[in-house]
Each structure stands twice: as C-alpha cells, then as structure tokens.
C-alpha cells in the first residue's frame, strides 16, 4: 500500500535549519533517513518544504478569491515536508515513521494511506 509520511515541526525546529551549529546534524539525519528509504526500495517520492513564513494560502471568501500570507492554521506545528512510500501495510509504514528524524526533534509524523485512483 502507498502511504504519505507528513512531517510536522515546531518553529524552534525550523530555526535549527538556520543554526550553523545544529543544521549539519539536522540535514545529516534527514539525508540518512532518505537513503534508508531508497535503499529499502520503498520511497516513491517526497519533498522538504521551506518554512511556513514563505507560504501563501488561497481560498474563496464571499465569492472572491482571498489571499492570506502564511499557512491557514496558525498551529504550533507546521508541515515541514513529506515522503511517499510503498510498503505492505500500515504496521510497516509506522516502523518507518518511527525512524524519521522529526520524532527525535520533538515533531510529529502523520501517516496517511493514499487514495487509490
């Protein structure tokens, strides 16, 4: 089955990316995780995202397109990136989620099955 691992991180973790002392370890961990996914032959796609401050949201309000600076929900954690994987079942997907660096950094990984088209 195909799953998305949706990675959510707090503002502090997004800041780690800009911190010269901590950034190498952060990127190193994600690179290693991505390599492990690739070597196991389960990765089918994915991307890291720029911080939420760079986001623009669009929706229709009273019949007109309204643009909002930033993501819609102002929550403590924001989407930081995602992986698309193909594994036998949810249990296997959860095992990969547990290895995701976001967990070590205090973030969360949402595991969602993809719609079958």
């Amino acid at each position, binding site marked *: 089955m195909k799953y998305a691992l949706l990675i959510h991180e707090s503002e502090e973790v997004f800041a780690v990316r800009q911190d010269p002392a901590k950034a190498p370890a952060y990127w190193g961990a994600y690179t290693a995780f991505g390599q492990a996914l690739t070597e196991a032959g389960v990765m089918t796609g994915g991307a890291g995202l720029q911080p939420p401050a760079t986001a623009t949201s669009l929706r229709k309000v009273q019949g007109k397109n309204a643009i909002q600076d930033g993501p819609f929900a102002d929550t403590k954690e924001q989407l930081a990136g995602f992986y698309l994987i193909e594994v036998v*079942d*949810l*249990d296997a*997907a*959860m095992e990969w989620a547990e290895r995701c660096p976001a967990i070590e950094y205090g973030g969360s990984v949402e595991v969602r*099955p993809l719609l079958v088209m």
Partner: protein
Amino acid sequence: MVHSLIDRSAREAYGRLVALLTARTRDVEAAEDALQEAFLAALEQWPLVGVPRQPEAWLMAVARRRWLDRTRKESRMDRYSDFEAHFDAMESETSRGMDLPDDRLELMMICAHPVLESSLHAPLILQTVLGMTADQVASVFLTSPAGMAQRLVRAKRKIKLAGLRFELPGHEQLEARLGALLDAVYAAFGAAWDDWTGADGQRRLATEAEMLCAAMAGRLPEHPEVLGLWALMKYHEARYAARRAADGSFVPLDEQDVSRWNAGMIEEAETLVRRAAAALKSSGRLGRYALEAAIQSAHVTNRLNGSRDSAGIYRLYEALVRVAPSRGVRVAHAAAAAEAVGAETGLRLLEAVGDGGERPYQPFYALRAELLYRLGRYPEAQLDYDRAIALSTDEAVRGYLRGRKKR
C-alpha cells in the same frame, strides 16, 4: 428448533467467520454485512430444507458469495481474485470435514492495534468477535449508543482503508495488546453476569466469553493472564446457582451453601490456577487476572476447609492494587484489609478511594456501611445503607442490604 440451532451456530460461528472474511480483506464491515445476510438466508431456508450437515461451512459459503457480489459491484476486479482462491481452498477443506481455521486471535489483535484509539479496543472486540450490537456494547461501557455506533464505524473504516496488519504481532506487541483482549472478554462475561434476571441470550454470552478465552488459551499456551482469566470465569460460573437463595434473595460468598457449588467446575478452575502459577514462574510477569484468580482460589479454599486465611487474601490484594489500581479493586482491597487487619484500617483505605463524587459508587457505600456498623457508628452506617440501597440496580441486592441495615 431450527431457530435455536441457527442461534447456536450464530454464537459459535460468528467471530470465526468474521475473522476468516476479514483476514484477507481487512474489511470488517463488509464481513459483518455478508454474515448478516447469510444468517437471514439460513432463517429462510433451514426451516424448509433442513439444517445443513455443516452449518458453519454453509454460512461461510453464503457469506462469501454475498461478499463477492458486493465487492464486484464496488471495486476493482484484481483485488478479489486471490481472495477467491483462498476461499476455494478453505471450502474444499471444510467439505472434507476439516474445521475452519480460527483467526479470531488475529482479529482481536487488529481491534487492539495501537493505531486505534485505546478506549475503542475492547468495544471493537465485543462487536466483531462476539457479534454484540453497538447498543449492547454501549451499555457495557456506559456510553451513548449513537456515539458508540459512530466511533465503531469509524474505527472499522480505518482498519480497512489504512491497511492494518492482520497477523499476530511479535512478543512485545502481543503482550501490550493482550490486556485489551482479556478486558474485552471479561467485560462480555461481566455484562452477562450482571443481568441475573437476563434471558438465555445473556447467559450464552457468558458461555461464549469463556469459550473465547479457552480458544485464546489454545493459541497462546501457558500464558498466566489468559489462564487466570479463564479460571476466574470458571469460579464465577461454578458459584452461579449458590448466589441466590430459594426465594431469589442475594447470598454473599461467605454465606453460600458450598454444596450448591459446581464441584467439577471448581476443580477445573483450581487446575487452571495451578497452571497459571506454574506459567508465572517461567514468565514472571504478574498481572491482574492471575492475581484475581488466586484470590478466588483462596476464598474457595477457605470456604471448603472452613478456614479463615484473611491475611493471605489481603496479601494478594496488596499485589493486585499495585498492578491494577481500579476503583473496584481498591474497594475490594479495603474490604480485605478490614478482614485481615481490622475495620478501622479498612475504613481508612476506603475513605482514600473516595465515594465517586458525581457518579456515586454503590460498592463504596455498601462497604462503608458495613465497616461503620462494625465500629459501632450506627447512625452513620444507616445513612450509608440507605445510599447503597438507592444505588443498587438489582432488587435481590437491595433486599440483602435492607436486611443488613435492620440488624
């Protein structure tokens, strides 16, 4: 006659058939619907053509056809070709007189999967394996039927769409999930038990719960908790008749006529307790059900030998309250302390449990009334007896408490 046969097949086969259909599809809802239709077909046809030689295989064959019709209608062809092969293999086995495989443990394990909200684990097990309706499940867990139905449906959707693994988990996970399984089985047993006046259907639920525990013991040999729960249920069943006097009034354990106990069943329970104790020595994990069974064993031994080893029972409760500090266990612990140490100690422990506040707890008042009485605090005891009587749902228990109050 045919109806009672269908009913018996239903109870015995239901969980096994849901498990078999779910094993390949993970679609609990479709399995339940298909079975429902199979039972309806049985109700129509068996009275006319007679009961088939293998009722379970017949139900399975009809359920499978209904399931395939439905799947064909709503999904892609490629998904069910391997299910068909699987069912064909199963059917040829059953036509040779072999038993259908028992996947109920796997089904229960998927219901207790950590990706599902933990408060739904036991309700899901009761519905999928024992075929209880959402209303019945809601009444066992004291929640609203509509809310329960909705949450069960949502959980089943997740099992189907999120692709949960349908197989026994590894040792660590298995141990983690087993508690929910045992709690569900005991809850079903308790639901049947509470309803003393209840119809045969309710009594059968108790029997079914015990059979399910036996099946679990077959799949997980010498597990102290499984054996403990099995023994616990046997102790209750063995004393079933003795709990009521001829006039229907309630008889507490220490006043029961032991000649009305089912001696064979007591012996079976004792054997299971010994097996649980032996299993504990090798696995070493002391749990709730092994302890509760040991407590029942001690009570039974005391009654049969005319002894009063209240200190031994209190020690077991000391251990139980550490592993499973539920309100019921803490009240029972206070009662054991009252017997072994004294009414004052019992009362002190009981007061620490609390009266339940907005949801007043009957056993709290019933025990406090007794302890206050023993301490000579009669007016307070009378007040608590009145509260306990008001909180009792069973008329026989109310009658018993009125008798205590009048002493």
